[in-house]
């Protein structure tokens, strides 16, 4: 075994591993990337029913209600970005930090009727933290400019949306 053949073996092993790693990564990316969408985007372009997305926005104040279905608790609430609202259904225990009028990110799929079935609900971690996607989306749609103070709570957005619709 000369130095050259040894190097050849190592290069072959490296190439085999790296190319299989790349192939696996690409394959996993194509089927498992999760896109973030705001409620208005979901309303405008509903994703395919089998596609998992992350839906983010504010929980509309007064929209949370619970029912019991086959002995399991189902939570329903509306998530809004100030332009549109999507009704989210989630079976399970809402996170400790979940509050009406505060930001939330839900992982799940959009149903045929336009509702959203969440498999996981993430609430923000402390009083000052808002999920980055939600903050970005608010800034993008012009609903909130961080230069002019704190993010508005969801209750005031409802009136914002209503005013827009009425006027």
């Amino acid at each position: 075994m000369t130095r050259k053949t040894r190097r050849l073996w190592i290069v072959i092993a490296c190439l085999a591993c790296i190319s299989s790693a790349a192939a696996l990564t690409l394959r996993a990316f194509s089927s498992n990337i999760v896109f973030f969408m705001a409620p208005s985007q979901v309303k405008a372009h509903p994703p395919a029913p089998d596609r998992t997305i992350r839906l983010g926005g504010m929980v509309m104040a007064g929209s949370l209600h619970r029912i019991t279905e086959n002995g399991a608790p189902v939570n329903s609430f509306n998530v809004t970005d100030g332009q549109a609202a999507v009704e989210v259904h989630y079976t399970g225990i809402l996170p400790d930090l979940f509050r009406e009028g505060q930001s939330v990110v839900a992982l799940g799929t959009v149903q045929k009727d336009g509702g959203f079935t969440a498999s996981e609900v993430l609430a923000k971690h402390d009083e000052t933290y808002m999920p980055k996607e939600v903050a970005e989306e608010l800034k993008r749609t012009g609903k909130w400019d961080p230069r002019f103070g704190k993010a508005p709570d969801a209750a005031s957005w409802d009136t914002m949306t209503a005013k827009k619709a009425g006027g």
Partner: protein
Amino acid sequence: MFGPEQGHFALALACVLALIQFVVPLWGAHKRNARLVAMAPFLAVSQLLALAISFFSLVMCAVHDDFSVQNVAANSAASKPLLYKITGVWGNHEGSVLLWTLILGVCGAAVSAFGRNLPDILRGRVLAILGGVSAGFQLFCLLTSDPFDRVFPAPMDGQGMNPLLQDPGLAFHPPILYTGYVGFAVPFAFAVAALLEGRVDAAWGRWVRPWAVAAWCFLTCGIALGSWWSYYVLGWGGYWFWDPVENASLIPWLTGTALVHSAIVVEKREGLKIWTVLLAIATFSFSLSGTFLVRSGILNSVHAFANDPARGVFILALLALVIGGSLALFAWRAPSLTSGGLFSPVSREGSLVLNNILLCSICAVVVTGTMYPPFMQLLAGRTISVGKPFFDAATIPLTIPLLLAMGIGTALPWKRAQLARTFSHLFVAAIIAAIGLMLCFWKFSGALPIACGALAIWVMAASVTDILRRVGLGHSSMSDMLARARNLPRSSWGAALAHIGAGITVLGLCGMSGAQHAIVEIHVGETRSLAGDDWTLLNVHDYAGPNYRAMQADIAIRHNGKLITTLHPEKRDFTTQNQTTTEVAIHTNFITDLYGVVGDRHGTGADATYVLRLHRNPLAPWMWLGGLVMAIGGAFSLSDRRLRVGAPKRAAARNMVQA
């Protein structure tokens, strides 16, 4: 004596000492001035002393409730238990950076203390590099995140700590994890020193390996503890979320594991030298980037409780300096390192090379999955995320050949292996693995858990049979075997233990893939069944804790009418922070965890219903037990005479000086 000003002064003093420690020995080594080089250990110890005073001062501020200190006011409260006042010191950004530099100081002092047998020049250079990194982090601490900042007027009470962090598991998680991260600074410093010297040999491998193994042990423990914490505190029933912060600790663990293995080849066969140096640099670079990912807001994460982009710029510059500088030095000096002995592809060296390639491929996948979303956000403006499905699909197929190779590798001799002989050595292990495969078919469901479970059994069986073969089972007497067992190097026992630990962890992961859970809403007295067990909600009552109010549920679990246990999960309401936390109740028999969570109460009086989440997690404790066994294996290998830091061969050291 230990007020905030004294602490601040001590930190500034440590920073100056670290700068001197960086400059003087390097200059001395360049000028071949032995006296300048010999100053390095003294400087390292004094720097540690100054840092210890600084850190102790911060602890005292927190213990004495000095709310005129901004950091204490923001993160502590008078009503907090003493333990959490102390551990709260590193539960926030400023304190954790101070802890980081303190551990780096300890590493420097340890190199001074245990490295007496190193050649003076090499030790001086290693300490200088450690001093440079230390100075960078202390400047970061002083300039952008001063833990001793005063606040005026001082508030009457602090804002309190995030209740999620008030937990013994998390209290000791950061120091252990940080020791792992920072510990890789020592192999990094050795690598840079070797590049400066232009020389890597077997002695270098012998010196660097204990430090890498020690750091690896701490990192392994830290990751296992963090995973255990999220399992029993967050109450989601999960143990690993493929969250950027978790990945930031997994990435250096993967390269660190590769480093621990490739350093063996340097030590025994003087091969893979350039590669080992590169791995040492990469591992520490990933550790540094890990801190960067956690501490700046660049990666959005469920753990992000302390993000501040302004500090990111400083850290980014520091990272560019350390990583860029060391890689540039590598590019410049690495070609001058000569490569060592020849080996055939089927040999111990060959299997270690394969291990390195596979570990680095997994690492590349994890890095891609972690970095792709923020880059997409930055470049294309699309917010995406990747989670468990992506990482499972991309990493498990690479783990399978890794596990396969783990079993074969230890049975191969150095340089060249005869296949027939190796197969005869592995015959028993293969039979055990085949039996294991049947067991897995019976217990697990799904192709991947079955395959991985059988391979985990294969790894464990191969490790055990390898040790048994080497003590001469079957052709020696009992006393002879005991004598051989005593003479077997401790590093062999350590390696076998670590591999067994890896097998246990993989089995735990396979078991957890079959976890079952149910979410129910029931009245007091009602019963629900999950996977053959009957869970009865007996009672729910409220009580007041030291700084919270709690609702506690009593849940009885019966199997075929026989009482197994009563769980007491709680929901706690922390009034200071207006936050609630979930206290999970877990019953374990080390085979299966029964895991209960109590959620909201709906309605009042006798009509009230409670939301409960019930989990049955097979083999869950094995995941962390395996991590512990791996770390014990590493520690055992550290106690090996040949590896002991204080006892490298004198002759080798002398050769190094002459050369």
